[in-house]
């Protein structure tokens, strides 16, 4: 067994240790093979695939419409955002226009989903590091969003949110009031989380300078979303390659400076505030009219290919759709942000302590359903 060059003085042996697949802080069935020198991590290898369901293969054997619910089940924390990217691609290929009201409601729901996803991330990230209270607070707010999902979609988690051409149905009565109520209360709630964490000495000690990665390196590793923006790279698909009407709304893209766990935390917290601003703009300008455009019963995109990239809460989520002109896709390749981002774990944990591995897994915000598909 190879020893760490720096530690030849003490001549300790490298210990190989398994973390997961059933470990509470790996957020699913992730197995990490750690090589430890004392408490220091020498190397880490991720072993994944425990949740592989072959969703891409299933897609090739289903019609376009039938594919959609499967994408709920890739990233089940952000199911609304996941379905969105695929449908945008199909609609683009077929030239289907979504009515303005439909587009606006979609953006609103995706942003609600972003807040819900970030809340779950914050809750679990905080509890991994040891902050119990934040966990309970975050779930309290997330519950309100899930109630909104249930009112509109009829489901809380795997929502099957959108249809080709728009939405299944319009907003239920009372939805807008409930949304306004949530949005009015939300900033105070975020301040509450920040009060508990942002200047907390334990939190700072556990996150500052942990898992540092420069912007250039982050691009090399294919990081996207908050992990990339935490390193100061301004790449948000809603701004870089606007889709679905995002160019009509004003919001900032929060950026970090140091590229450490703390900066990624700050970026996500700020993103929740920005999402709230987008939803408020949507509600303010919400036009009337239908929520679903004209779409054929059998969806048959013309023979061709299209890469539809969207900014999911976790980063760049892409659907590469190849059509042969039939009712079933020839191939759908999902570009999952966390599958590609998880590679960087090896790079991020090197040299850190065993306990920091948990913080770094948390900061990457992985969802194993998406990693394994």
């Amino acid at each position: 067994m190879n020893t760490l060059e720096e530690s030849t003085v003490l001549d300790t042996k490298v210990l190989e240790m398994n973390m997961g697949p059933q470990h509470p802080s790996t957020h699913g069935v992730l197995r990490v093979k750690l090589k430890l020198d004392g408490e220091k991590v020498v190397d880490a290898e991720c072993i994944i695939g425990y949740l592989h369901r072959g969703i891409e293969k299933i897609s090739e054997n289903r019609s376009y419409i039938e594919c959609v619910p499967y994408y709920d089940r890739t990233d089940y924390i952000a199911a609304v955002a996941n379905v969105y990217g695929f449908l945008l691609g199909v609609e683009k290929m077929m030239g289907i226009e979504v009515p303005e009201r439909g587009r606006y409601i979609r953006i609103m729901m995706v942003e609600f989903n972003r807040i819900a996803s970030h809340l779950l991330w914050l809750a679990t990230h905080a509890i991994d590091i040891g902050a119990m209270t934040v966990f309970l607070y975050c779930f309290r707010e997330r519950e309100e969003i899930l109630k909104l999902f249930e009112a509109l979609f009829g489901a809380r988690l795997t929502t099957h949110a959108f249809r080709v051409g728009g939405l299944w149905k319009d907003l239920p009565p009372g939805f807008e009031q409930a949304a306004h109520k949530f949005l009015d209360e939300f900033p105070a709630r975020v301040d509450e989380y920040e009060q508990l964490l942002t200047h907390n000495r334990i939190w700072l000690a556990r996150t500052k300078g942990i898992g540092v990665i420069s912007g250039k390196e982050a691009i090399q590793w294919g990081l996207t979303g908050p992990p990339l923006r935490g390193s100061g790279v301004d790449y948000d698909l809603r701004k870089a390659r606007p889709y679905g009407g995002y160019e009509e709304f004003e919001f900032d893209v929060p950026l970090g400076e140091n590229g450490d766990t703390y900066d990624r935390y700050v970026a996500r917290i700020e993103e929740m505030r920005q999402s709230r601003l987008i939803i408020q703009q949507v509600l303010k300008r919400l036009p009337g009219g239908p929520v679903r455009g004209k779409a054929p019963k059998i969806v048959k995109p013309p023979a061709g290919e299209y890469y539809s990239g969207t900014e999911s809460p976790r980063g760049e989520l892409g659907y590469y759709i190849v059509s042969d002109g039939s009712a079933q896709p020839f191939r759908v390749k999902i570009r999952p942000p966390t599958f590609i981002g998880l590679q960087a774990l090896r790079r991020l944990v090197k040299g850190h302590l065993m306990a920091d591995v948990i913080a770094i897994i948390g900061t990457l915000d992985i969802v194993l359903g998406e990693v394994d598909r």
Partner: protein
Amino acid sequence: MSKEDKTQPPSESGGEKSQESDSLESQPSSQAGEFQEKKAKFSAKPVKASPPASAKEKSDEPSARAAKKKGTAGEKDQAQQPPKSEDSSGPQPSSEAGKSQEKKAKAPAKPAKPSSSAAAKEKTDKPPAKPARPAKKKAPTYEDLVDDPLLESLQKKFSEGILSGQSFLDQATYTISLEVLHDVLLHLRDDADSDYDYLIDLTALDYLGDEKRFCVVYHLYSHQKKTLIRLRCAVAEGESVPSATSVWRTADWMEREVFDLFGIDFSGHPDLKRILLPDDWHGYPLRKDYDIKLQDQVWIKEHLQIRKTPE
């Protein structure tokens, strides 16, 4: 394919549609509709009177709640309808038609592929499905890139290595031969004019029956220029593709995934092994000749102790 698979697609889409039209047309006659009328009457007079809005909201609330309840009850009924009709009355005439249409479309299933030959281009030029209604927009097709600086510079540098440059729905696709692939990737990353520093995605397609069966697809993005391009490279079975891990670190797991699911070899990859499937799995699931129900029975028997009866 089992019975279930065949009947599902048309009935599903048909069911969904009918359900939708139900909800659109039947609701106004239901109680929810009554509420809507009431609301319309209510809001007809004090349209822009904002001060009494709070009072209006209050008086609206109970009725809104009631309507919500009724609305959800109605939805439940509708949601239950489609499966019922599936069980009892079997496929409806409309779904029959859908089935035959789908079969027709399946028969000439010729995967789209940008190519330099005119013959192949004509294929893609064909109307995709049934002749579209005259009012409809023209279906998108592959168009040759004209005056594309990147294509010109690539052709200057790699001459015959660049087979074609086309665009589909404003996404540029460059077809590249395997011999120059690695050099092209390096050039695209390092050349100041292109500067594609970010590999978005790397995947493969299986055109079963073609001389060069596989096609490796790269999606690249330049943070500086904010452009996205796609590279295609045809690969025959057994040929190995130069690994892009030395160009972009992120290619590591992407190539492992392609190796795992397609069985394409990447030469120069530091640790090429299966990633999603177990190490001792046989077969490559995303190949087109790997049936969706086909599984590695030996592996399943050995590891899960499940004995499957042959179909």
